């Protein structure tokens, strides 16, 4: 929930920098070993956004697979499983994670205001 609140705050701050407006969608990258469950986060986001300019936004969560350096293979490999950090190819313990711990707000989509100041209906119908 605290992560969701940080996402909403970040999205609102970004919208503010762009001159404000209702947020239609928020793009996030969530690593497979970030400790955040994507389904739980999606639910928490819709709750955290209630009553803000991000209420009703589409939450677009992209999963990022875990990949780490394998000393055995001398290459970046994927682990056996998300939380079993042995090399999927040779079974050696993997070293530093290159990807998989991401919790990133990558982009927001703002509804474009018309001359009258009303938000467009197109994205709300989407």
């Amino acid at each position, binding site marked *: 929930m*605290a*992560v969701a609140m*940080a*996402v909403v*705050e*970040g*999205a609102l701050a*970004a*919208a503010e920098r*762009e001159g404000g407006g209702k947020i*239609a*969608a928020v793009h*996030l990258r969530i690593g497979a*070993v*970030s*400790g*955040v469950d994507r389904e739980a986060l999606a639910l928490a986001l819709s709750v955290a956004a209630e009553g803000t300019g991000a209420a009703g936004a589409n939450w677009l969560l992209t999963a990022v697979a875990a990949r780490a350096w394998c000393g055995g293979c001398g290459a970046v490999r994927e682990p056996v499983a998300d*939380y*079993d*950090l*042995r090399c999927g190819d040779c079974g050696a*313990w*993997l*070293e530093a994670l290159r990807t998989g711990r991401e*919790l*990133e*707000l*990558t*982009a*927001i*989509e*703002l*509804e*474009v205001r*018309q*001359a*009258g100041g009303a938000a*467009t*209906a*197109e*994205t709300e119908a989407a």
Partner: protein
Amino acid sequence: MSEAAAPRIVAVRERILKANDLRARRLRARFQAAGTGVISLVSSPGAGKTALLEALLPRMAERYRMAVLVGDLATENDAERLRRAAPAVPARQIATGTVCHLDAAMVERALEGWALAALDWLWIENVGNLVCPAAYDLGEQRRWVLLSATEGEDKPSKYPAIFQGADLTLFTKMDLAGAVGFDAAAARANVQAVRPGMRVLEISARSGAGMDGLAAEIGR
């Protein structure tokens, strides 16, 4: 009027916990400038964080100037326990209300009025929780994760993020290991699976087993 326009996409690309990370970085710089070592403790509720400090602080109080911050949703109970165990060590409770973890801002506020330069070590006991504290940097230099014998061997497999973010694992309540059938070797293997190379110490705050080794750990 113009036709309905497509939404405008704005690239943001920022880390979600950036504000906390920045604050934690500032705290870490302050601790370093003051020469204060900071160790935080994380575990599930009841794994023995407070008991560990009750046993450890009196062993260290003659050699080091220390202070403790202890986080809980409510009550002053843990801070009071620590004051009784080590009266010379100031202990402050951080009541988080509904928040299930400490963050860098709470630590920053709780430090107000303490002269860090007068402290060799600051202990931070996080809220008992194996999930949320993993995501929040508090500016500490070391993080110890506790796993009590009564919790079973598979906690590292179930809650890997908290183990991956820690520097040392402590198996606590080892005086009960036989009674509850705790398989320390299996638990060590589970720790290694999620955090290769992590060191593990086995202790009992009640019997004192392993406590001298842990006190020596401070000097590392």
